[in-house]
């Protein structure tokens, strides 16, 4: 890039051409005051605070919008500049209301800072505050636009960063302000309450709503969001060891930049919930007729746990104990957890909550690519030439990914959405395919067959990196396209248009729970994999396969071996060579018995085969189908330990409850859905006597083994780095990545023989329709809750939003059933029922019903049968046949 030389404040400087004077100044440590400038936003030049003077011409210009030019002589602090800046600040303050003194923005207000720097106190101008009504009907954001200086940051953030478009300038002159369409409250607009605008606002015009006055935080520290698999970096503000405010940390090369979503920004008030556990508890004998729980010292609680587990192990054998780890706990904690199960107790009965979002299916890619598909940076998405979004509604499940997708769409990348519902992404998509439920597999196979028929595949790539194409193409050419079109309800013409659209393009795939949790999920992932090979996209620039992870450390928990079938590093337990290696690593004999997954654990408890369970950071009573069955099963256990941060439904059944620290209160690391390993430090101390999960586990190991524990987190990390090559970068740095270990040629050009085979072409039976249950219910999430909603329901703000989880049906079905918006309806499946109000939505197809999860104690789980999700022949959890009854 061309560099140019200029003079700034008497110093000769050089900088790349094309950047603004403000950026050049910044690069050379010269601070120019600014209000409307933000590095992530397009320059706007609204506030004029950044005025500088060009000495040669005497021109005053806004530094943020003026590009540098050769030989400029810039003065950033000349008396003339300062006078002008001062006048601008005076005018702004003259228009500002007097409530400034009690503003929650306090000393962080940029306007106050700038005014103070410029020495503007009294303005000596006629005070003319521009009163606008205070808007605070929602529990998240207060808009006090009388404090608005019209810098437009909120609008630009809303348009450019999160691409929602909830607000824009409205009206002119004195009346001008950022407004929603029809000037409705934010809660009645399409605002997603991501809060990005709130963090950007330089004044108190936009602020976070708190139930009581919190003032400016004493301290700010960075950490990682504990909700979804995106792993946003957070700047957590705290006062008196309580988290009072959350903003995007805006660190370099972070996944989220200056954005967050409603959960990350506003739901972290759950950390201060009254329902937090603050001490270990032991259940007292029932006849004591007083308090059921006694708080005890750690020593006593852990002694009891160690003693009971050891007793049960020696009485009933190691297979009578099961360990349910957590997709929310750290890598280090999950590593220790599965080690207790496999090494100390000697069982592979270890799983984590990621089970419920289909983590087992990742196996498809791992087996095919030798672990090559684990790193998919989202920043590569902008290189994709076309994007397929399959069974995913990232606007709700993992909002930051929807920002990436919408930005790509704005730049002109064609997006193909495959979804039974008209999700918000459809608005920006080039194509929306609405296959009949559970026919995604057929659809993708048909697409592959058509790619083949029209010779729109990449022969060079296929030749270089794959094997078995001749067999695969034979099965493609014998696929009955007309049948596939009939089954899916997508016409051939439309498919042909898509083939034309993607011809020769590198494609990124975004795969969501609509695929992961469905009946043919595994084959469907296989079919997607095939298309990525046919088009030469896999491992190519812009050709990522982004599988959505619902929970913050779902990937890490699996990588650390907190799954029954995989040892740390996702190495197959049933591979003798692997198992031998780990026996050597840990100096112990490992059980070759395949362990129980989460559902099988419940079944085993039901049958009385399981005697004890140790549950860390999961709430199966809320997240599994048929909660009554789960409860009965857990009640049969002789001994139940629950280690959690909240007094959850499951904790209330435990014999011993261990109070744990939340992510913001401990050291650790999470691995996000891109394969990014992010380490973090505590922002506040844990409440009461709660301890970090790793400390609890370490103390327990020491007790059970009668040895010294690891004692420091670094020792645990050292062991992981040594034994799990993919985690060589788990070194406590802010971020690292999973190490590429695949020996396949496409990932690693050095080996010419590591060729990839296609996934076999599988077709499905047409499924029969049960006339007793004429509708298909789709269960899915809303952005305000994460997973089953244990934590988000403990958030006062989310509670205050009053979501009732309305059942959505199509207007056609509404007319047929004579139901209107607000009617009460019972949705009944063969397994249970839920009752809620209904809303008619044209986004829903006739014959389908959408049931939001996580609300009303997650009663949507009543509808689904508790069966094995991992088995390709299971009905899947995403959809279930139901009937509707008006109440």
């Amino acid at each position, binding site marked *: 890039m061309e560099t140019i030389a200029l003079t700034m404040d008497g110093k000769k400087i050089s900088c790349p051409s094309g950047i603004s004077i403000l950026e050049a100044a910044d690069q050379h440590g010269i601070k120019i005051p600014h209000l409307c400038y933000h590095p992530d936003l397009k320059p706007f030049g609204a506030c004029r605070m950044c005025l500088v003077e060009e000495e040669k011409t005497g021109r005053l210009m806004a530094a943020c919008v003026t590009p540098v030019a050769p030989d400029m002589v810039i003065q950033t602090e000349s008396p003339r500049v300062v006078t002008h800046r001062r006048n601008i600040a005076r005018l702004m303050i003259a228009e500002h209301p007097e409530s400034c003194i009690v503003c929650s923005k306090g000393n962080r207000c940029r306007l106050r800072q700038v005014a103070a720097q410029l020495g503007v106190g009294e303005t000596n101008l006629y005070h003319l505050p521009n009163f606008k009504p205070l808007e605070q009907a929602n529990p998240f954001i207060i808009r006090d636009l009388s404090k608005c200086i019209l810098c437009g940051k909120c609008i630009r953030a809303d348009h450019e960063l999160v691409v929602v478009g909830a607000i824009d300038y*409205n009206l002119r002159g004195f009346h001008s302000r950022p407004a929603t369409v029809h000037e409705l409250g934010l809660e009645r607009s399409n605002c997603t309450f991501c809060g990005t605008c709130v963090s950007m606002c330089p004044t108190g015009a936009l602020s976070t709503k708190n139930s009581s006055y919190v003032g400016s935080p004493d301290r700010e520290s960075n950490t990682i969001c504990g909700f979804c698999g995106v792993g946003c970096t957070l700047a957590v503000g705290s006062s008196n060891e309580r988290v009072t405010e959350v903003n995007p940390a805006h660190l370099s090369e972070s996944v989220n930049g200056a954005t967050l979503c409603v959960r990350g920004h506003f739901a972290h008030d759950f950390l201060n919930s009254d329902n937090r556990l603050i001490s270990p508890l032991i259940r007292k004998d029932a006849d004591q007729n007083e308090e059921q729980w006694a708080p005890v010292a750690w020593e006593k609680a852990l002694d009891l746990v160690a003693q009971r587990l050891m007793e049960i192990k020696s009485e009933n054998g190691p297979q009578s104990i099961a360990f349910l780890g957590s997709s929310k706990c750290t890598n280090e904690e999950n590593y220790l957890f599965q080690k207790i199960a496999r090494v100390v107790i000697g069982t592979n009965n270890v799983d984590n909550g990621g089970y419920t979002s289909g983590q087992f299916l990742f196996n498809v890619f791992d087996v095919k690519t030798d672990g090559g598909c684990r790193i998919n940076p989202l920043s590569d998405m902008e290189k994709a030439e076309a994007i397929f979004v399959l069974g995913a509604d990232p606007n709700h499940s993992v909002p930051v990914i929807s920002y990436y997708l919408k930005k790509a769409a704005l730049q002109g990348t064609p997006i193909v959405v495959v979804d039974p519902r008209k999700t918000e992404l459809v608005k920006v998509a080039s194509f929306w395919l609405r296959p009949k439920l559970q026919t995604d597999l057929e659809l993708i196979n048909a697409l592959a067959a058509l790619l083949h028929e029209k010779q729109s595949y990449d022969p060079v790539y296929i030749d270089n990196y794959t094997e078995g194409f001749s067999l695969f193409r034979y099965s493609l050419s014998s696929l009955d396209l007309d049948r596939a079109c009939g089954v899916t309800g997508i016409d051939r013409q439309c498919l042909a248009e898509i083939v034309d659209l993607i011809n020769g393009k590198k494609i990124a795939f975004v795969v969501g729970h609509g695929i992961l949790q469905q009946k043919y999920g595994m084959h469907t992932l296989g079919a997607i994999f095939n298309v990525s090979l046919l088009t030469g996209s896999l491992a190519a620039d812009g050709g990522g396969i982004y599988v959505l992870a619902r929970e913050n450390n779902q990937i890490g928990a699996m990588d650390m071996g907190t799954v029954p079938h995989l040892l740390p590093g996702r190495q197959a337990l049933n591979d003798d060579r692997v198992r031998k290696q780990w026996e050597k690593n840990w100096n112990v004999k490992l059980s070759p018995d395949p362990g129980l997954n989460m559902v099988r654990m419940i079944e085993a408890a039901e049958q009385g085969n399981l005697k004890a369970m140790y549950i860390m950071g999961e709430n199966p009573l809320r997240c599994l189908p048929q909660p009554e069955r789960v409860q009965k099963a857990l009640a049969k256990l002789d001994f139940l330990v629950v280690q959690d941060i909240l007094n959850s439904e499951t904790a209330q059944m435990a014999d011993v409850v261990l109070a744990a620290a939340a992510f913001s209160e401990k050291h650790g690391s999470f691995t996000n859905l891109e394969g990014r390993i992010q380490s973090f430090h505590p922002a506040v101390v844990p409440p009461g006597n709660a301890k970090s999960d790793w400390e609890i586990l370490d103390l327990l190991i020491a007790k059970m083994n009668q040895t010294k524990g690891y004692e420091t987190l670094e020792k645990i990390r050292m062991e992981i780095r040594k034994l799990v090559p993919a985690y060589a970068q788990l070194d406590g740095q802010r971020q690292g990545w999973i190490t590429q270990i695949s020996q396949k040629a496409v990932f690693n050009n050095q080996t010419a023989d590591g060729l990839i085979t296609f996934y076999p072409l599988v077709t499905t039976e047409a499924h029969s329709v049960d006339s007793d249950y004429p509708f298909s219910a789709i269960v899915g999430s809303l952005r305000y809750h994460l997973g089953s909603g244990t934590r988000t329901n403990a958030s006062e703000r989310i509670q205050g939003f009053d979501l009732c989880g309305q059942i959505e049906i199509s207007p056609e079905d509404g007319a047929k059933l004579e139901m209107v918006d607000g009617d009460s309806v019972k949705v009944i499946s063969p397994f249970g029922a839920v009752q809620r109000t209904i809303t008619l939505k044209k986004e829903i197809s006739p014959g389908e019903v959408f049931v939001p999860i996580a609300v009303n104690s997650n009663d949507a789980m009543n509808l689904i049968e508790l069966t094995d999700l991992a088995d390709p022949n299971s009905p899947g959890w995403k959809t279930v046949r139901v009937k509707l009854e008006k109440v």
Partner: protein
Amino acid sequence: MNKPEIDWEKLAAIVEKHKGKKWGLIPLLQEVQENFGYIPPESVEHIAEAMHMFPSQVQGVINFYAGFSLEPKGKFVIRVCRGTACHVRGSRSIIRLMKKELNVDEGETTPDYRFTLETAACLGACALAPTMMVNKTYFGKLSPPKVTTTLSEFSKTKTEEKV
């Protein structure tokens, strides 16, 4: 006369005509405004989707230009000039009379949607001061009696085609 009924099919046809065209928003809005006398707020989302814009952006454009309105206006939009020349020649009393006669305030529309009363900073016809416009027709050298007769002219149905 009631609030004008919107022929939604016609509106959809106008939107369709400009759909997705670069710089197409202003011509689209003009055509809607001309055909319906205003831009129905209900149509903002639809227009936005067709033009690949956010509804809030479309609203911003509508409310930026005085030529567009989100509220239905009267059949006859009266704009009384408030320029200096007209002011000197008594436009204030013209406006006052107008308000009394129509029983509306500035910017308002009569309940029968026949008249909307507006003022303009200058109509550019100072020689005729005080002046006003009714839709696209100028009326100059106004006096209270002239205002009253002009208004009653426009109150009669037969003149509707004239303007």
